């Protein structure tokens, strides 16, 4: 008995039992957010506006998928199931990602007639990356040490992602009229669902109480403060208020876009049950 206790203290994979639910909920939000956006990024492979962008974007999507994998691993360590199972086998209703991140890249399919919207992609990634940076900064001080460690690792990669999307955001918005019109429309579309990224959902207050992350109001203010200079730079009005037009993903509300994404990303995983790939 004693031995078991000491083994457990060597590998502290348990949080306080009363706070565990809030921790698991937070980890699912973090994991699913990055996983779905990385998936949408992977659909762009080979289709980006030019070859240099194809390479850079793919690199960002790989990083993002890697971040998701680290969060799923934390969940696996907490006994929630294997990371691959959590990524591939959970139904839409169990997903906690913001709806904005599951939305399709545009009409069409990644293999047939992909009429993908680069403006939407740039704005979605730029907004999300700013929110993610703010969130990570808070998470580095999380009361759950393994999460704080992972956040510190991820933070290192975020600087480059942010620089990348900021450059696109400013260049396209400041370019010719057609580009500015498309970007303005994309900003409206993203803003209409961006509150869904910023919320911590129904268990948000518990997350704060257990010292896992800062309050969503504080995070939201910081995210807005981070985004505002870019709007001044391109001379556009601030797109407030943010909404949750297509539902609150933190509560398991999702769109058919997520069903389609899950069917595709788990097609092979589900093809032969219990197989090792």
């Amino acid at each position, binding site marked *: 008995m004693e031995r078991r206790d000491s083994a457990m203290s060597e590998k502290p994979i348990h949080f306080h039992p009363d706070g565990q639910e809030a921790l698991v909920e937070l980890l699912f939000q973090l994991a699913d957010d990055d996983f779905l956006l990385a998936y949408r990024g992977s659909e762009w*492979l*080979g289709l*980006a*506006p030019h*070859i240099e962008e194809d390479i850079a974007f793919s690199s960002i999507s790989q990083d993002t998928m890697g971040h998701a994998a680290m969060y799923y691993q934390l969940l696996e360590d907490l006994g929630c199931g294997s990371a691959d199972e959590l990524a591939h086998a959970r139904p839409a209703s169990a997903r906690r990602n913001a709806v904005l991140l599951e939305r399709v890249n545009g009409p069409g399919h990644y293999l047939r007639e992909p009429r993908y919207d680069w403006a939407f992609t740039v704005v979605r990634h730029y907004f999300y990356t700013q929110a993610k940076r703010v969130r990570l900064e808070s998470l580095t001080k999380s009361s759950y040490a393994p999460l704080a460690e992972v956040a510190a690792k991820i933070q290192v990669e975020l600087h480059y992602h942010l620089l990348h999307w900021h450059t696109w955001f400013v*260049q396209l918005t400041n370019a010719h009229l057609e580009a500015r019109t498309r970007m303005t429309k994309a900003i409206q579309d993203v803003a209409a669902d961006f509150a869904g990224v910023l919320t911590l959902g129904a268990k948000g207050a518990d997350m704060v109480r257990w010292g896992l992350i800062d309050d969503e109001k504080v995070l939201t203010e910081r995210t807005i403060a981070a985004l505002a200079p870019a709007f001044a730079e391109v001379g556009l009005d601030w797109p407030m208020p943010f909404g949750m037009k297509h539902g609150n993903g933190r509560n398991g509300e999702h769109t058919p876009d997520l069903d389609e994404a899950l069917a*595709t990303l788990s*097609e092979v995983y589900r093809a*032969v049950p219990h*197989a090792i790939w």
Partner: protein
Amino acid sequence: MAAMMTFTRLSDEEKYERFMQRIEAGEKIEADDWMPDEYRVTLIKLIAMHAVSEIMGALPEKEWVPKAPSLRRKLGIMAKVQDEMGHGQLLLRVAEDLMAPLGKTREDIIEDLLNERLKFHNVFHMPAPTWADAGLIGWLVDGAAIMTQTNMLDASYGPYARALKRICAEEVFHAQHGESIILALAEGTKEQKEMLQEALNRWWEALLMFFGPPTADTTGTSKQDITIKYRIRTKTNEQLRQDFFTKYVPRIWALGLEIPDETMHFDKEKGQWIYRQPDWERFKEIIRNNGPKSQERLELRRTAYKQNAWVRAALSAVRTAG
């Protein structure tokens, strides 16, 4: 300077002679050096085709990137396909330098691809309907590519030889990535093994065609004589195909797979592999962009190109203003 003055006064025949002496002595030709038109044109065609083949070659595997069956495989195949795009970019830049005196740019290469004036490698016109195809491409198609590219590592054109060194180093990782997928399937369930055997059956003929016909008799033309003359490559198509068999046939058999050619064996007396020729008539159709997936994959790129036209226009507006 004096040497340069002397060189410019030489007749074309004399320049040609000096050029051939240089490459026969193993010297490297650089982008700004004098070179015969035939050499330049051959290189442009070869390198531009190689570049667009890397880019088009990303497409059959790209189909499986979002579907890869685990987090590790998702990350692996994304990185692999990204590398292929990177090779495309590297080669476009090499081709671009050669094309500069002709007043052409990489936009021309991409447009030639989309307008079908420039063809992409015959192996990338084939369907990849299962995850096993994605593994097989990594293992055997990249394995075959390593052979043809290693054959040009000492190419007389320095910038191409240097690009190939980097590409080959990465291709070795790709072949390992593919082999790892294949091993998991070969050691997996009955369904996984079947999936793998079917993929091999599907790709076998394409792998034979990969190296091109043995002689110019098959298709009427062949670049292999010119490229050997100019020390761009050393081995013939058939020598490369034989090398491929030597390396991979025993490995394929060792995995318990069947090669869909019952005549396949090594003839010790002749010192070569005996095999059934692929259908070279089919090959001719494929290299005219009439392969099973030629048009679909070109259409995918055309759609993306058209869809993003406004982005390119916006970027060039930014450049002009800057």
